[in-house]
């Protein structure tokens, strides 16, 4: 591969190139050829190709896709279903939305191929209602595919019928979990249930159901057209192909990227991402969203794949990647994700419903400067209990952001609880605005802008801030023309 080109576009191959509202443009780039080809093969042969490609689920879990198709195929049933998981609930993630908005037909084509392989005649796309443009383009795409006979009865003149409908989610993170998603589609509460049974045995309306993620599907047509060998030549030993990431945070080039598995974090952040904004220092990168963890300097040269990320204390997740610099406080970062989890927990089981709330409260206490070393012990203990005892993936992974930041930034936690200082200067309660009497000329400006009259002093004499009144708004700091006010 050319050294300057770190990306390969497989799942994103058409995004930005075709008009997503014109099926001819998709066909002009070999669209629906993979479906035509698959229908000339036996379902077993198609599944075998997918298995040999080494493709694993891009929705987070990384389950081997070909194996899942085979499992669904093997269950005998009158009716089976093909489901596309387009719930995409991770904060800051938009990989799936981009694929649906830029190349909706690829998902339809792959779902039809799956229907042929598993013996399902019906496909359902579960998409959040907050994605109106993706929904509109999917509707147009489904309409055009039906018109061309690429969905419907006797596709390609063969004895195979398949159609697709949309189902709307209300945007709950937990509804991305496959059992909760199925319940939500059935009109029940979007709560997970214990697996097994897996959806491939008993899913939508009790029928065998193959659930895959949007990006997983987007790889399928390429595997069939270019061959499993081509696909398997990209990536690492156990993770094949590419992964799309939504690169965000303190990097210069935020955006969607698609890199071969095995690319390092350093290449992603510094070569593709263009390095850290404003020449600041790299501190950490969060992968895997609310289920993932924060990786540091020492992880920068690890090849990214499912197994390496887990071994480093994070995970692939669906592809959110948030870069942090020296100004980010890791305790606050952990608190941010916990806040999200507490909001999104469905409340069905106690460890997740109550445990995460307690974790959040402890973190809050620490950022308020009222934490103790004992709190750190509690965080770790409780975090591990929640991981071990929660019912679904949400609870089982929710303490990861806390545990991984404690693992990699223990000093920063200690500084909060022992010295009552926030080294990154983010925790307001732990900062003080102080006037340096040697630099203050007594111009009185700060005293006039202070909204709570915390500053006193005679004209032309050094001023002082009363820390018990100061609300740390920073107004005085901004206004002082003599640089006499500093933050500690």
């Amino acid at each position, binding site marked *: *591969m*050319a050294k*300057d*080109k*770190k*990306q*390969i*576009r*497989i799942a*994103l*191959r*058409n*995004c*930005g*190139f*075709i*008009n*997503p*509202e014109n099926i*001819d*443009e998709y*066909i*002009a780039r*070999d669209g*629906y*050829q993979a479906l*035509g*080809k698959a229908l*000339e093969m036996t379902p077993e042969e198609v599944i075998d190709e997918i298995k040999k490609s080494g493709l694993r689920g891009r929705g987070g879990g990384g389950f081997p896709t070909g194996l899942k198709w085979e499992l669904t195929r093997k269950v005998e049933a009158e009716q089976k279903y093909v489901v596309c998981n387009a719930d995409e609930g991770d904060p800051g993630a*938009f990989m799936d*939305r*981009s*694929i649906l*908005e*830029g*190349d909706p037909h690829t998902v339809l084509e792959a779902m039809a191929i799956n229907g042929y392989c598993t013996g399902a005649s019906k496909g359902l796309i579960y998409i959040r209602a907050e*994605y109106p*443009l*993706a929904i509109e383009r999917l509707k147009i795409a489904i309409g055009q595919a039906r*018109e*061309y*006979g*690429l969905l419907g009865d006797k596709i*390609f*003149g063969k004895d195979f019928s398949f159609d697709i409908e949309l189902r709307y989610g209300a945007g709950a993170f937990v509804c991305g979990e496959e059992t909760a998603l199925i319940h939500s589609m059935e009109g029940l509460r979007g709560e997970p249930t214990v697996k097994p049974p897996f959806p491939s045995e008993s899913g939508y309306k009790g029928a065998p159901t193959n659930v895959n993620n949007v990006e997983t599907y987007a790889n399928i047509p*390429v595997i069939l057209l*270019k061959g499993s*060998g*081509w696909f398997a*030549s*990209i990536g690492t030993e156990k993770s094949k192909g590419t992964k799309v990431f939504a690169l965000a945070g303190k990097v*210069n*080039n*935020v*955006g*969607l*990227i*698609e890199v071969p598995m095995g690319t390092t974090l350093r290449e992603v952040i510094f070569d*593709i991402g263009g390095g850290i904004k404003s020449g600041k220092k790299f501190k950490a990168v969060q992968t895997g969203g609310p289920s993932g963890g924060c990786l540091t300097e020492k992880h920068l040269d690890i090849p990214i794949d499912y197994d390496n990320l887990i071994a480093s204390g994070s995970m692939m997740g669906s592809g959110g990647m948030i870069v942090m610099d020296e100004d980010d406080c890791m305790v606050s970062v952990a608190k941010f994700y916990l806040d999200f989890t507490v909001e999104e927990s469905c409340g069905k089981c106690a460890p997740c419903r109550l445990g995460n709330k307690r974790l959040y409260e402890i973190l809050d206490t620490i950022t308020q400067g009222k934490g103790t070393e004992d709190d750190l012990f509690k965080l770790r203990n409780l975090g591990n209990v929640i991981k071990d005892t929660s019912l679904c993936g949400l609870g089982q992974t929710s303490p990861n952001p806390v545990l991984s930041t404690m693992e990699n930034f223990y000093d920063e936690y200690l500084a909060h609880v022992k010295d009552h200082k926030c080294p990154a200067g983010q925790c307001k309660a732990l900062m003080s605005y102080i006037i340096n009497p040697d630099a203050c000329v007594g111009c009185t400006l700060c005293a006039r802008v202070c909204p709570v009259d915390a500053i006193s002093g005679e004209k032309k004499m050094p001023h002082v801030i009363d820390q018990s009144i100061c609300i740390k708004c920073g107004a005085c700091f901004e206004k002082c023309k003599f640089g006499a006010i500093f933050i500690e």
Partner: protein
Amino acid sequence: MAKVKSLDDLKKIKEEFLSKEELQKNGDKSLGIVQIKVAMATCGIASGAKKTMDYLINELDNRAIDAVVTQTGCMGYCYAEPTIEVTLPGKEPVVFGYVDEKRAGDIIEKYIQGGELVGDVIPVNYETIEEHNIE
């Protein structure tokens, strides 16, 4: 539209579309048409891609420049939205970033009419599936 009944039918649609496109791209300058793709995914639209697209259509019309302006999905350059891809007849496509109405005006005047590269050109930093070969 007749239904697609075979891979051959599919191939026909592909070839028809490609030859139409080829005609626009590779015709000599007097015949060829300028092709512009505006990235219109949620991210692009939020940064003003719709305005840019409307402006381009109007301004090209005002100047009587023969061009097709179409929408595409997201090219992934969120940091530089709105982005547009311009293909002059017989030339490689060029992607421009940060294209607000003012930049769009510059691109029409300097690049499309003058052939001179302006503003923020985004380099191609990926391989396509056609380009990537087994090592």
